């Protein structure tokens, strides 16, 4: 029973690599903002911390647990936004979400993140790939001062 090529599209080697060796996977000692989110279907949880230098993300740390997609997506997100300004990170988030939700052709600036496009064929897993990014959006909003106090939920699972 060989696996379908489609399944390989989901579990690309680079995704599994991030899953096994997550980057920036530790809490920050001094964070400017901390946000968390969860996906009630599978219990995925992501806690995210950002430290800024002026408007630039100077340090990022995250924790949580969940499936390979949610964890790899968080790891890749953390690499992708580190060093960017809030506005750049937000633009990247928007591009990523567009690729995941609408199946739009990936924006070339997404780089490695493009490997997650395969998740698009697995509607039920899209939420997994988006979780970390939603928490990022919360964190950026919180920093911009629209913070909601209590931990916000992210998306309802499908």
């Amino acid at each position, binding site marked *: 029973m060989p696996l379908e090529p489609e399944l390989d599209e989901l579990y690309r080697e680079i995704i599994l690599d991030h899953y096994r060796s997550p980057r920036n996977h530790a809490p920050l000692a001094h964070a400017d903002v901390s946000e968390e989110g969860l996906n*009630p*279907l599978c219990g995925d949880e992501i806690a995210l911390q950002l430290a800024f230098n002026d408007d630039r993300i100077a340090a990022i740390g995250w924790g949580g647990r969940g499936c390979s997609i949610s964890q790899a997506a968080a790891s890749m997100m953390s690499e992708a936004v580190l060093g960017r300004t809030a506005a750049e990170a937000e633009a990247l988030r928007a591009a990523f979400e567009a690729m995941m939700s609408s199946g739009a052709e990936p924006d070339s600036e997404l780089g490695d993140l493009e490997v997650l496009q395969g998740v698009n064929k697995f509607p039920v897993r899209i939420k997994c790939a988006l979780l970390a990014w939603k928490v990022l959006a919360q964190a950026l909003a919180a920093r911009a001062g629209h913070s909601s106090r209590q931990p916000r*939920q992210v998306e*309802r699972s*499908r």
Partner: protein
Amino acid sequence: MLDVAAIRRDFPILARQVRGRRLVYLDNAATTQKPRQVIEALVRVYEQHNANPHRGVHTLATETTDLYEAARAHVARFINARRAEEVVFTENATAAINLVAHSWGRATLKPRDEVVLTHMEHHANLVPWQITAAETGAVLRFIPLLPDGTLDMDAARRLIGPATRIVAVTAMSNVLGTINDLRPLIDLAHEFGAVVLVDGAQSVPHIATDVQALHCDFLAFSAHKMLGPTGVGVLYGRYELLDRMGPFLAGGSMILKVEWERSRYNEVPWRFEAGTPNYADAIAFDAALDYLEALGMDAVREHEVQLTAYALGRLAEVDGMRIFGPPDATRRGGVISFYYGDIHPHDVGTVLDYAGVAVRAGHHCAQPLMQLLDVPATVRASFYVYNGRDDVDALTDALTETAKVFGYAARTRAG
């Protein structure tokens, strides 16, 4: 105009006989029949997709979830809600109203706050408010009726005021057929900061509904009264309102995070859908909406106005007939309640059944209104898309027969 003959062919039950006679189904205000398109949609769920939605990553669960949420989105479009999340699926219209009486009412109402109802409410939009009022100390006020069976708007303007917290009113009476002019009532309620729940159980199936144009805060109705299966009701609520309401039924799916002693609840609308929803019937309801949209809700309304006008005319020819509700067919729905001579409605119903004519005889879940009308019950004939003039004729013919049984001197002047 609707092509009644073609429509009838879509409804398998209409081919059936009752005691050797063609079934003339005139009990549509109670529940409607189902076209094969709806029955087939239901069969399709069970034969092809069936799985518990919202809880699984496997293909069947994904398919069922998509179909279920597509049904929700379709309902939202059908009533022109701003977003699908404004649609909560419940067991029936009654459960939808109970949800509001509980989650909004018990949390909001204080002693001496006023709940304004009308004298034409169905028990479903009366008894839940009695219970909530008893629990909170709120007071029920009732907008009375004018002799023609319409709301007394002058009285309404006196009743609705600063103490009013909610106005819960039917869009169309299931006894009198009266279609209420809701917009002025709703504007009045909003002036005083009250919210408005519209009982659309009788209106949504028969008249195009636009919750945004109506400005209502809540709307309740039932799938089974609009060609859909049983076991599905809808509560529409403005998102901001729903979002502030606590849960009603509790269990799986309506939660976000559960600990032993407390829980955080899910987003709207899922917060209000506890446990395994009746997804198969909700998905089949989607097909009922397709069917109605293909006919066109304006054509449905037009058909019923004409049929009701015809029926009012034919019934008026029957001697000793006392018809309730507004005389003008454009101001009422296709629901005609009457009292025939001195023959008890129960007896009329039995004789009509012998003629194959299914009508309702009783209090129509509006007991106190019966007292106002000073009758123990009424006979009610109600129409839908598959009814034609031949059905009305069958009704009047059978009434003549009824008079014979009871020795009542009924004559139809022109029949």
